């Protein structure tokens, strides 16, 4: 069922704002992870500006939905989304990565709205699982005696990041514990730091692996808001299994001249800055 056109438009607007602000953030820090920040931007926008239950004025509300960005180097669009949502002043952007900054090179819990101090890849999904289990403790029960989780947990995982064995430890345990309030969104942009994922460490076929572990698995275009929202809503409906949304994305999506190049961690020259801002007008 199609979503309200105005909602889709709003999310597209938000996604553009957070991409533009991410460019500003990277400029302030001189370098950043533009590729992976941009590939996940639409997913982040859909979560932060529609699907998740959260309150920027109350970042520690007990029953808030949690967003855990396990690929925490892609922090710039996360910071931009939190700034745009009102978790902190956009004044903080210019201090990114500098001495004494709250906005460190990888997201940390000291930032209002950030649940997880990342940087060490492969660990965030386990943290997300812990939060998901916590949501079920002391929760009211439904008519069949199952706990109704007090909140949902959304975890963005990288495809390169999925090389780490611990990701699969969490995948295995989430299935075992039927953590149906846990949604993993795989930002499947087909690149990792030093090359394509197929060149570096071929893990194809992708969706099959999550299905094999017993997860409720969907594959979508990670830049199509209609598809993103539908997948997230389906995840709410399916009970008894954790949910994997394999989002096919483009690294650096949003600046056509940057797309399909492996702009992983890069210095943002004045030329690149101008190019990006022109594309994101």
């Amino acid at each position, binding site marked *: 069922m199609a979503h309200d056109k105005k909602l889709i438009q709003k999310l597209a607007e938000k996604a553009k704002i957070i991409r533009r602000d991410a460019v500003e953030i990277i400029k302030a820090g001189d370098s950043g992870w533009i590729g992976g920040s941009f590939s996940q931007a639409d997913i982040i926008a859909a979560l932060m500006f529609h699907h998740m239950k959260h309150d920027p004025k109350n970042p520690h509300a007990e029953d808030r939905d949690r967003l855990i960005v396990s690929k925490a180097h892609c922090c710039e669009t996360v910071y931009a989304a939190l700034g745009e949502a009102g978790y902190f002043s956009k004044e903080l952007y210019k201090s990114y990565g500098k001495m004494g900054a709250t906005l460190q090179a990888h997201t940390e819990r000291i930032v209002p709205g950030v649940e997880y*101090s990342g940087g*060490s890849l492969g*660990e965030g999904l*386990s*943290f997300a699982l*812990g939060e998901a289990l*916590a949501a079920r*403790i002391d929760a009211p029960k439904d008519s069949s005696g199952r706990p109704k989780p007090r909140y949902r947990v959304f975890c963005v995982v990288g495809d390169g990041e999925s090389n780490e064995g*611990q990701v699969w430890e969490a995948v295995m*345990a989430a299935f075992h514990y039927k953590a149906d309030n846990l949604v993993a969104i795989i930002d499947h942009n087909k690149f990792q730091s030093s090359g394509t994922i197929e060149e570096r460490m071929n893990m194809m076929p992708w969706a099959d692996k999550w299905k094999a572990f017993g997860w409720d698995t969907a594959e979508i275009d990670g830049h199509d808001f209609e598809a993103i929202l539908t997948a997230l809503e389906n995840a709410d409906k399916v009970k008894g299994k954790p949910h994997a949304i394999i989002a096919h994305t483009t690294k650096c999506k949003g600046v056509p001249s940057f797309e399909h190049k492996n702009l992983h961690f890069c210095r943002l020259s004045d030329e690149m800055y101008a190019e990006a801002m022109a594309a994101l007008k």
Partner: protein
Amino acid sequence: MKRDYVLEPLGEMKAMYQAYHEEMVALSRKNGKIVLLYGDFPRGAAGELFQKEHPDRIYDVGIAEANLITTAAGLAGGGYLPFTHCHSIFAVGRAYNQIRQNVAFDKLNVKIVLCNSGMLWSFMGGSHQIIEEIAAMRVIPNLMLVSPADPVSTKKVTRAIAEHVGPVALRISNPAVPTVYRDDFPFKLGEAVTLTDGGDATIISTGMMLSDALEAVDTLAKEGIKVRLLDMHTLKPIDEGAIIKAAKETGAIVTVEDSSIIGGLGGAVAEIVAENAPAPVKRVGIKDRFGQSGTVPELKEEYEISARHIAQAVREAVKKK
């Protein structure tokens, strides 16, 4: 010379893990936030109780120590008080980054129980006996490290770490050990316990080696060497004051641990003594080697950490004064 809260003769033999579980059962009656996590590990009395009465607060993640530690961190993020249980060698070894990055970095309220700690887990042999434990853990910021010596102190330590807000690693050895303390002995996290008074030398012990250290003190007393004995149950934050006092007042220190002499209790004490009150320090511990199978007394002889080795170390330290 021996403080009145030190049992004479020593009390019943009991495994510290059993004492830990008895305390956890008692704590669980007052604290509804405790969550027990296991890496395919024996449940113990508390685990069995939770399985019956609090099934939503007990989880086993299987043989997956990294996931064990980080899932615990997530539970702490969700407002609960997790205690993780797996072999020390695999917590410290396989989940070192997770302890450091997911727990200590953000000072999350996770208690990491280092089961089968140290080098005296008799049958299991070199892959399971851990030499690097104290050195590796004490160098992580924000992480409290505790190492009780007997069943009575294990209970007090367990209760104290549950009340402390912040990351804690708890060493619990496998073998049954003698009860050393009276139930009401003076205990405070971060404060070394004095078991005997003496001015000729100080033995500083941590963990299950305490009863061997006591034996050495008795042997030396008969030779006219009066030894102060300190139980350093809290390795981090270590009781610097007690160490400096011992160096200044007794002039010779011997450290005792079932852990490497590189970087463990001996290293910590040597750092403080050299910086504040230089005095001879002899480290009794594992001399940079891997472990092996054997009975506890055989292993103590093999590793040269038995009571007679401790006594000899004291004699040598005193000579260097």
